[in-house]
């Protein structure tokens, strides 16, 4: 058991849930969602622990739906060569939202965007939270959720049609569209569609 857990309990008391040892010998500590960012900042900044290296962020959804979805932070202290796994449990029925840690580790930016894309967990105050692996106007939902079928919700023909029929602005993020707009380079029809907010809808043929 990692000594950081006692220090955490001393510092945050009830915010720290149960702590177990995983099969690979690393310590897992469950933290309450509202205090998660403070706990992570504390772990990163206190000299005795100095978990300055964020190895990975991911989410886990179990096969039985009652179990909460877990957002897992893999932390590592390079000097002390020790690892710690911090988990936040989100009950599936209430809102899937967690505080973003991009302000603590810059490496978390894309990792959180991928968890948002694949699981639908929103990260509050993330600088640029949008889909990263699927295209931004992807309409079939979050692929790694257990209720998402393996071959996707639409028929194959519809998937091909949606992929081919996306409007040009669907290939660009709003950030880039605003840059182009700043230089008056958006074609009028695209600006019209953007003003009407039609960026997501794919023109249906029937």
């Amino acid at each position, binding site marked *: 058991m990692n000594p950081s857990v006692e220090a955490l309990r001393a510092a945050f008391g009830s915010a720290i849930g149960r702590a177990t040892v995983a099969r690979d010998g690393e310590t897992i500590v469950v933290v309450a969602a509202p205090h998660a960012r403070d706990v992570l900042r504390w772990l990163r900044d206190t000299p005795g622990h100095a978990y300055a290296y964020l190895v990975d962020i991911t989410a886990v959804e179990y096969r039985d739906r009652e179990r909460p979805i877990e957002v897992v932070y893999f932390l590592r202290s390079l000097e002390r060569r020790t690892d710690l796994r911090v988990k936040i449990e989100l009950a599936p029925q209430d809102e899937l939202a967690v505080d973003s840690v991009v302000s603590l580790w810059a490496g978390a930016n894309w990792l959180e965007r991928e968890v948002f894309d694949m699981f639908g967990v929103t990260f509050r105050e993330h600088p640029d939270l949008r889909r990263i692996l699927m295209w931004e106007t992807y309409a079939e939902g979050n692929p790694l959720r257990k209720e998402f079928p393996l071959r996707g919700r639409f028929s194959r023909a519809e998937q091909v049609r949606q992929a081919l029929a996306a409007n040009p602005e669907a*290939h660009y993020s709003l950030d880039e569209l605003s840059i*182009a707009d700043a230089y008056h380079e958006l074609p009028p029809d695209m600006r019209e569609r953007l003003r009407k907010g039609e960026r997501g809808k794919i023109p249906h043929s029937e």
Partner: protein
Amino acid sequence: MHQPYIAFLLLLAFVAANAVLLIGLSHFAAPRKPTPTKSAPYESGMPPLGSAHERFSVKFYLVAMLFIVFDIETVFLIPWGTIYFADSSAASAGGPGMGFLLAEMLVFLLILFVGYVYVWKRGAFEWD
């Protein structure tokens, strides 16, 4: 010895004919099937955003001009070189003396060197 220019003109004519033939043949014989996507600019498979007609910083134009000046300078050296470094038969055929040829080219190079130093001191070579 017939007029030396015939050979040169023949070469020029052959080059021109060759160019016209190649471009003309491919212009008429090649299958041309324009479609809206094909005529759109190629940007690695993505629909382009914004036009390519941008106002660029003036430093690019400046570099182009400097290049032309000093490139043409070297172009002038080539014909001069063929005459200057040819065998001494040119001097004996009543042409201008070797010394004069050298002096003339040195003056030419000096003028351009003054221009080079001026441009250098004005900082045109600083890129950003």
